[in-house]
């Protein structure tokens, strides 16, 4: 495959491209769906092709093909070059890329239990285990949607500036939607996912069936014992799952430099952050947010991005101060900086754009007990269902799924749907303490057009917010 990738890059240069890259991708995997105990079917994923991106006269063109012949690739290169030329005519400033150091590398994530050697029947057992474990709780769970997925993601990236990066990253995941119906009331844990880069040993260690049991029991308890949450100004302790969605939505997204510069304005939106805000305070000193693609076995794992740039942890907020944006080469160049390897594409037929990987609230030095003990009246929000944020990433809302009252330093009964609707600055300025332990939760981050759902982890440590307004 290397020859075809090299051929594409060379051909593009011959046709006048000042910059050319080609990315071969291949995904092979399995999907198994079970609905209400019925095996719905087995999906086999086998997808591969080449995407070519070029700059000509400062215009950008992209074309892809899944017909892996020289003729077809040449045709795609021609199209990309032609499109770039035409696009250049409708540009005020030519596109340029930042200067980077490139490498020729191969890396892979090893599997202890290789899913390619395991039958579909055995993979189905994981879903059966969730079915059985949920049934054994005795909690009435009339709707159960379960999905198992795995795929090996093979990439070969090359550009005309010396990059050659080949990677093999396996990914495994289990997703469920469980509806609990008791005493005429219904609660739901939708699209809960457990997901990793690696082999089946990670699923077996994580035990999604135990997460599912925890969820249905919590929902049953919520129905039977849940009360109204307190209203008005209270303290709020966010568990890692909720802290994770909050850092993803209100820190990760608004720090994407392409969004800051307006490139995503018609789709995923813009940002309240401006380039000149580097160094400004956005949260309390307790808040540090890190974005790190290199966490081993993480759902958002990579070591080189899809422009061939080497990845590293990025400190988006350091002790409350805006420290760094997420960048690709195009947008780093606008600020005269180097890329920090945030360019990702979900498939060969998509352009790499600025994306998150694993975003988390860095740990502080409080134990969980210390976070709770001096809260007179508050709520402990463990997990969330509904959430959203405006397209400048400033006004957001999270509604608790599993949540409890905190009274005089003790966790009491469950509370129903506490609503936090707050601004980004309001949220991060209210944090006065952060826990010691970090946990991660997987998600699929949407951006780009056509949409590119990339695997990410979100998480962090527990965060305590003082004096925020909660609603019912």
């Amino acid at each position, binding site marked *: 495959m290397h020859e075809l990738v090299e051929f594409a890059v060379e051909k593009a240069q011959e046709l006048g491209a000042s910059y050319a890259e080609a990315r071969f991708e291949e995904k092979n995997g399995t999907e198994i769906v079970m609905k209400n105990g019925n095996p719905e079917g*087995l999906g*086999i*994923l086998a997808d591969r092709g080449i995407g070519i991106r070029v700059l000509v006269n400062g215009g950008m063109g992209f074309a892809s093909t899944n017909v892996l012949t020289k003729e077809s690739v040449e045709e795609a290169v021609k199209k990309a070059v032609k499109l770039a030329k035409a696009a250049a005519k409708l540009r005020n400033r030519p596109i340029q890329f930042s200067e980077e150091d490139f490498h020729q590398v191969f890396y892979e994530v090893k599997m202890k239990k290789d899913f390619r050697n395991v039958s579909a029947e055995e993979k189905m057992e994981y879903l059966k285990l969730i079915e059985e474990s949920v049934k054994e709780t005795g909690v009435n769970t009339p*709707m159960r949607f379960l999905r198992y997925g795995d795929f090996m993601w093979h990439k070969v990236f090359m550009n005309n500036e010396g990059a050659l990066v080949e990677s093999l990253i396996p990914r495994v995941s289990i997703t469920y939607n469980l509806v609990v119906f008791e005493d005429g009331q219904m609660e739901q844990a939708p699209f809960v996912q457990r997901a990793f880069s690696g082999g089946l040993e990670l699923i077996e260690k994580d035990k999604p069936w135990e997460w599912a049991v925890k969820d249905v029991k919590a929902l049953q308890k919520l129905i039977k014992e849940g009360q109204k949450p307190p209203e008005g100004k209270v303290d709020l302790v966010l568990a890692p799952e909720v802290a994770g969605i909050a850092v993803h939505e209100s820190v990760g997204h608004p720090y994407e430099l392409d969004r800051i510069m307006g490139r995503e304005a*018609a789709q995923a939106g813009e940002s309240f952050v401006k380039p000149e805000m580097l160094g400004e305070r956005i949260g309390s000193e307790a808040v540090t947010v890190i974005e790190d693609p290199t966490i081993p076995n993480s759902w958002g794992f990579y070591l080189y991005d899809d422009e061939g740039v080497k990845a590293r942890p990025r400190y988006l907020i350091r002790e409350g101060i805006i420290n760094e944006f997420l960048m690709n080469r195009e947008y780093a160049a606008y600020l005269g900086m180097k890329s920090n390897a945030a360019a990702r594409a979900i498939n060969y037929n998509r352009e790499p754009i600025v994306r998150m990987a694993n975003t988390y609230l860095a740990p502080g030095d409080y134990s969980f007990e210390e976070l709770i003990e001096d809260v007179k009246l508050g709520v402990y929000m463990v997990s969330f269902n*509904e959430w959203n944020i405006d397209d400048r990433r400033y006004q957001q809302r999270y509604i608790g799924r599993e949540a409890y009252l905190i009274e005089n330093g003790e966790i009491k009964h469950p509370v129903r749907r506490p609503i936090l609707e707050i601004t980004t600055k309001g*949220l991060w300025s209210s944090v006065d303490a952060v826990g010691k332990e970090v946990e991660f939760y997987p998600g699929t981050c949407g951006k780009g057009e056509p949409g590119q759902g990339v695997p990410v982890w979100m998480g962090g440590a527990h965060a305590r917010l003082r004096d925020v*307004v909660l609603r019912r």
Partner: protein
Amino acid sequence: MFEINELILKKAKELGFGDVVVLAYEQNRRQVRFANNEITVAKNWHTQKVNLFVEYQKRLASTTLTALDEKTIEKTLQMLMKSVKNLAPKEDYYGIAEGPFEYKDIPETFDKAIVELDEPNEYVEVAINAALEEGAKRTAGVLYTDHNKLYLTTSNGVEAFDEGTGIEISIRAFIGDEESGHGTNSVRVLKKFDPESAGRKAGEIAKMAVNPVQGEAGTFDVIFDPLAFANLMSYMSFMASAFAVEAGFSFLVGKLGQKVANDIVTIKDVGNMPNAYGTRKFDDEGVPTRETTIIENGTLNTYLLNTSFARKYKRETTANAGLLMPEAWNVYVGPGDYSKEELFSEVKRGIYITNVWYTRFQNYVTGDFSTIPRDGAFLIENGEIVKPIRNIRVSDNFQHILESIAALGKDLYHIHWWEVNTPVFTPYVLVKDVGITRATK
């Protein structure tokens, strides 16, 4: 492509599969993306692929083939057979449609002029210039051209072909950081394409939205622009699917024959609508697409079904296969008899919401959700827009919204863009007593 389809079908039957569906695509798609009034990237996709569905003694499997040589085909089928053989059967599987069927040509779904269109950038310029003329400072958006060929072959006697084209634009116009508007235009034939109207609407709304004030929380009568209401209705396309209902992803669970909306509300799926972006001649089993009334005068009439679900529920298929998951083609909200002006004159104190995004559910089965107004939103007093507002959120219940629809405009608009994946036809809609919230810190 039919020779490849036939080959796959023959080999699959030889291996012992029962029901087999082979759906081949040949797609040419072109995209021009723009931001800050300039093109950010132009793209082209050429795709050949075969979606393959097979059944072996009620055991189901599917895959997509992109390499279409005989060796790959044989290898794939053998692997599918090996994989499904040991799986437990799907006991509630009841087969696929019995063909052959007759298909009618659907008007305004194919236009040679789009296939032959060499350079679509002039349309981008038209839309940008229209928005700038209205007062916008910068614009962002995307233009697509599409040319698709579909070849369907099934083990139940179906051999069907469809060829379609399309061109569409979505443009957002900005004045300052918080003043924006959005317009779209999606058509299947070139002579009906009107990028200027999309740009003009985006620019007009952005201009009206200058200097917004913080909106208040409370309960308001809301006029939803077609762009905004289409976002909510696009969720209907998923929630009306029998699959979503069984899996607990729908507020329509257990409500067949019951009132779920105001009497004036009729919502359909129309798979064979002329000049609509989601229109196809046949569904994934080859059943000719048609009009299906999901909600009729406020009552839930049917879920969207394929043949297997239809047999399970002792109904007729609604021609919405998706073999695993039935899905809508074009969601259609029946019009009322109000002009836009008459609709506004009905509102003493309320809000005009021009667009929403990020609709998320607290609970799919109860239908509790919130969504965020994006672009211009405006306070209405005594039928008149009095000032632009910002930073509000619609926080309500899906069924409550449908039950509270008080009036519908008489003109329908075709909406299809990044946030509205399944095309929606909808008028301006007046909804009473909509919950509005805002951030508190």
